[in-house]
């Protein structure tokens, strides 16, 4: 009897295993390109049958939506549905910190949303996996003239970055110009000390030293200058010491051309010089002793609580800046284009024009619908009422609704990639100033910034009364003016993408680099350990990657 049971059990186990195998190792679905009807391939024609487009999103900040609205139902999606009969559905919604992880898992199971906004690394993964559409034709036929003009402001360099063998595999979101670091300073502290705003690096350091000594809050815990554990942040970031590096002609983290060959900026001798300086600053206590362990909230709190009077960031300041005015009505911030070198130039490496990339899953039968959705989003967001938009009236109405309800929630767009003119930061700053002079926002050239205008106006009338208005003036006017200052010298760079070896080795090389730099700055390692790092870096795969970059760059 027992034997029989054993046999039955064995049979059942085998049967289970077979089903299991079938469930687990199932063949990926046929990925042959589906036949797509092409008569709708233009910027605006509507579909007869509703097209449903799925996407993955990060959890929206509180207040992004009006009560009852969400990613699937908001002014943009309704406009898109009403005009072209395209619907948006959320496939998953995750915390921003988990977004890349979710995409990794989606790729692993071959089930990506119809459209996604991704970075270059994931873009490459998607290409390797052959999961996404060639968008060349869809772009050419369907992009609206309104958006095309903005894309064209970048010249050829934008699309070249996302093209693969001449094919446009994704639609880039643009990385605006002028998003290098400026120096934010407490003007009231400067005044207290009778100092002028610094321009050279020495003056910047003297100011930090003086601020520390000033001990504004009386608690002896003022920090001179701080940064993140990454030390440098690259383009469009907060807190990085990039401009101190560039003062010494060092450009860590970017690929430069030296003697006609690609070379990684972090391993050049200029970096060693800059690190030596940072090491001294750290030893002296001017560079925050705890910079490496602070998180974003900590750093904001340093600004907010009056413990930090200067920091480097993009023209859009940290929330710590307006926080400080809540705690202290005397707080006054300015931004300057410093530290300038001997020629008066602030050196900035040429940025990657691609901010992120919108891709369309091959399983989605209507790649052109994604472009149409993109058009629609911007027609609302920027109030495109030109004659090229057949839905101008609806767009204007939707635009007014948007402005009245949730003017900051551009991420609610069906396809939330950022597109704007390359020098939009400067244009908008001038627009706002002009509008204030003319007392008429309609003189503004780029639409969609009326809210900024009103905020700045409000802050002019009642300074610092409104947190948001103060932040807007700091960003759009104070920061933008410093970022558009004429003394920026763009340093040519030569590569922003990813190579084959990068995808396996880059994170450990990055870690090696970061550790080497941290150790030098904190005095844990000798300054000459930089040379060891360089040779170790080259041996551990850096050389191979450099060769690959060189090869891809030429291609």
């Amino acid at each position, binding site marked *: 009897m027992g034997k029989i049971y054993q046999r039955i059990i064995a049979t059942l186990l085998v049967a289970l295993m077979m089903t299991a195998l079938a469930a687990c190792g199932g063949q990926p679905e046929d990925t042959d390109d589906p036949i797509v009807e092409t008569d709708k391939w233009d910027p605006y024609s509507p579909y007869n049958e509703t097209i449903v487009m799925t996407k993955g999103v990060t959890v929206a900040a509180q207040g*992004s939506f009006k009560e009852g609205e969400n990613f699937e139902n908001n002014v943009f999606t309704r406009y898109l549905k009403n005009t072209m009969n395209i619907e948006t559905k959320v496939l998953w919604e*995750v915390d921003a910190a*988990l977004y890349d992880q979710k995409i990794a898992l989606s790729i692993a199971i071959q089930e990506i949303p119809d459209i996604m906004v991704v970075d270059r690394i994931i873009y490459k993964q998607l290409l390797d996996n052959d999961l996404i559409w060639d968008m060349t034709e869809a772009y050419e036929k369907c992009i609206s003239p309104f958006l095309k003009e903005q894309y064209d402001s970048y010249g050829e360099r934008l699309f070249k970055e996302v093209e693969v063998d001449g094919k446009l595999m994704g639609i880039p979101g643009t990385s605006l110009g002028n998003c290098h670091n400026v120096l934010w300073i407490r003007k009231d502290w400067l005044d207290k000390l009778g100092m002028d705003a610094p321009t050279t690096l020495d003056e910047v350091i003297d100011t930090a030293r003086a601020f520390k000594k000033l001990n504004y809050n009386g608690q002896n815990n003022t920090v001179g200058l701080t940064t993140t554990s990454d030390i440098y942040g690259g383009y469009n970031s907060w807190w990085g010491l990039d401009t101190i590096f560039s003062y010494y002609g060092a450009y860590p983290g970017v690929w430069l051309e030296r003697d006609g060959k690609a070379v990684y900026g972090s391993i050049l001798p200029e970096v060693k010089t800059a690190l030596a300086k940072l090491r001294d600053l750290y030893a002296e206590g001017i560079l925050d002793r705890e910079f490496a362990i602070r998180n974003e909230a900590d750093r904001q709190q340093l600004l907010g*609580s009056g413990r930090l009077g200067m920091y480097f960031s993009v023209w859009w300041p940290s929330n710590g800046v307006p*926080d400080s005015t*809540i705690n202290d009505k005397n707080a006054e911030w300015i931004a300057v284009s410093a530290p300038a070198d001997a020629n008066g130039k602030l050196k900035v490496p040429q940025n990657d024009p691609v901010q992120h990339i919108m891709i369309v899953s091959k399983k989605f039968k209507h790649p052109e619908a994604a472009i149409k959705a993109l058009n629609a989003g911007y027609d609302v967001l920027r109030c495109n009422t030109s004659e090229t938009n057949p839905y101008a009236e609806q767009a204007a109405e939707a635009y007014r609704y948007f402005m009245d309800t949730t003017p900051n929630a551009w991420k609610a767009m069906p396809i939330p990639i950022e597109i704007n003119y390359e020098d939009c930061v400067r244009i908008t700053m001038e627009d706002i100033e002009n509008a204030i002079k003319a007392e008429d926002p309609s003189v503004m050239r780029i639409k969609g910034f009326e809210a900024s205008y009103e905020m700045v106006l409000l802050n002019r009338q009642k300074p610092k009364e409104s947190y*948001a208005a103060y932040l807007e003036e700091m960003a759009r006017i104070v920061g933008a003016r410093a970022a558009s200052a004429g003394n920026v010298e763009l340093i040519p760079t030569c590569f922003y993408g990813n190579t084959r070896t990068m995808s396996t080795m880059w994170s450990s090389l990055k870690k090696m680099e970061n550790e080497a730099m941290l150790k030098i700055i904190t005095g844990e390692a000798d300054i000459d350990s930089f040379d060891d790092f360089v040779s170790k870096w080259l041996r551990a795969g850096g050389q191979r990657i450099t060769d690959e970059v060189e090869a891809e760059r030429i291609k």
Partner: protein
Amino acid sequence: MVKSNSSGDRMVKIVSYTVVTVLMLSCLLPLIHTLALSLSDKSAAASGMVTLWPVRPSNSAYKAILGDKQFFLSFKNSIVRILLGGALNIFFTVTMAFPLSRSKRLFPQRNIYMWFLIFTMLFSGGIIPMYLLIYRLKLMDSIWALVLPSAVPVYNVILLMNYFRGVPRELDEAARLDGAGPLRTMLQVFVPVSMPCIATITLFSIVGHWNAFFDGAIYINTQAKVPLQTYIQQLVVDMRASSVMSKEELAMLAEISGKSFNAAKVIVTMLPVLLVYPFLQKYFVHGIVLGSVKG
């Protein structure tokens, strides 16, 4: 001689009491500190002034929690999870532990099953195959993805199995003579006398489900379904003030520091475990000891 002995004995006693008390306090102090933080004013909390007693007491952190919709949703999700997951765990633990506690003569296939269980305990396929499986089974974004994979807690099965084996043979035989079948024997004889052990595994299950955070982060696609620990973990990872805020929200932000707000969340999150644990504690020592460690 006797005298020196007793003074030495007193020494031993004093040392023991001291060490034990110090260790006990070491367990309490971090929690008391967190409680004090959560009840302190923002700036006091931020400056590290708070030790074991609230400085400039304020309940604004708890008020802020009351205004946090996601916190409540997640709290509810976790409650549902421990009820459902706990029930499944107990069901499978009891139904599997009982047959496995029988002798090979009564249940000849016992060892096959036993080895199977042990094998599943030792090897795992890793995150990606698991994710693929959950996806293929269409469990993604559902509470079942959080409770089914861990529905059979093998460790608990072994614990209860060993406990069942310690049940006096006479009880078993009496039931047999009464003509009770295996199911009745299990439910009417074994389960009632094994309550300490079952209480223990219940505690383990509840705590395990309540404390899990990783599965919630990868299997759940909708924020409204995220369990509490996953939500708390995300908060710890990134606490960013949203850029659009009303004046009232900002006033509140100014009022509470990240530290006291986080501390309040930590306290509320601990609460259910702290409430359930003392009731089950008296059983679990007994349950674990009899279930696992008798030489």
